[in-house]
């Protein structure tokens, strides 16, 4: 079984500042890792994912996450945030052996961007 811990429930930052949203996972097997974003009153959207290969993965809107196996982490970063990044961010994990690909989600981090 897997579990995910998102260490911060809320992160307030100023516009154009850098941000890091922390995610740690626990698993006895190899994992796939995901970040989803949920804008107000919307469903979750896949932001980026790590399956294999390069441990640094990027999204189209400037976010990146790095898989660190030794620290069992998959932190999400952006060097300069915009007001439009205000949303809730969810880290998720699934075991690579699982054909069902059932995702286990963290509790979410609410990112608030202040002007």
């Amino acid at each position, binding site marked *: 079984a897997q579990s995910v811990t998102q260490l911060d429930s809320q992160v307030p930052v100023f516009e154009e500042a850098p941000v890091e949203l922390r995610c740690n996972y626990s698993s006895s097997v190899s994992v796939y890792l*995901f970040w989803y974003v949920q804008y107000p*009153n919307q*469903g*979750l959207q*896949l932001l980026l994912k790590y*399956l294999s290969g390069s441990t640094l993965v990027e999204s189209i809107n400037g976010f990146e996450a790095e898989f660190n196996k030794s620290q069992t982490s998959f932190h999400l970063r952006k060097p300069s945030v915009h007001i439009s990044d205000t949303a809730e961010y969810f880290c998720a994990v699934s075991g690579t052996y699982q054909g*069902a690909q*059932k*995702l*286990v989600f963290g509790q979410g981090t609410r990112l608030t961007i202040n002007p």
Partner: protein
Amino acid sequence: GAGVSQSPSNKVTEKGKDVELRCDPISGHTALYWYRQSLGQGLEFLIYFQGNSAPDKSGLPSDRFSAERTGGSVSTLTIQRTQQEDSAVYLCASRPTGFYGYTFGSGTRLTVV
């Protein structure tokens, strides 16, 4: 369709009544999932359908919950004898075979009064 469609978007029901929530996945997506999002519980897996295989119901919280998927497409989640603790946003997601990562619908917000 272009995305995963869920209906209704909002549902208010009286305690003890039955409700049906509908999910229309993206055409061609063979896998379909239901999750529940509630305060304090985060996102919980409920049930998974893959093609014609028997569904994985391991996440259903009680026998009041059931789901079906007809013709490998539309799915209905039914909650019988609703309780206040069933109040949550019910999210449906789908994905094509071999793809990693779901596409979620906007959810149905269920309020039991």
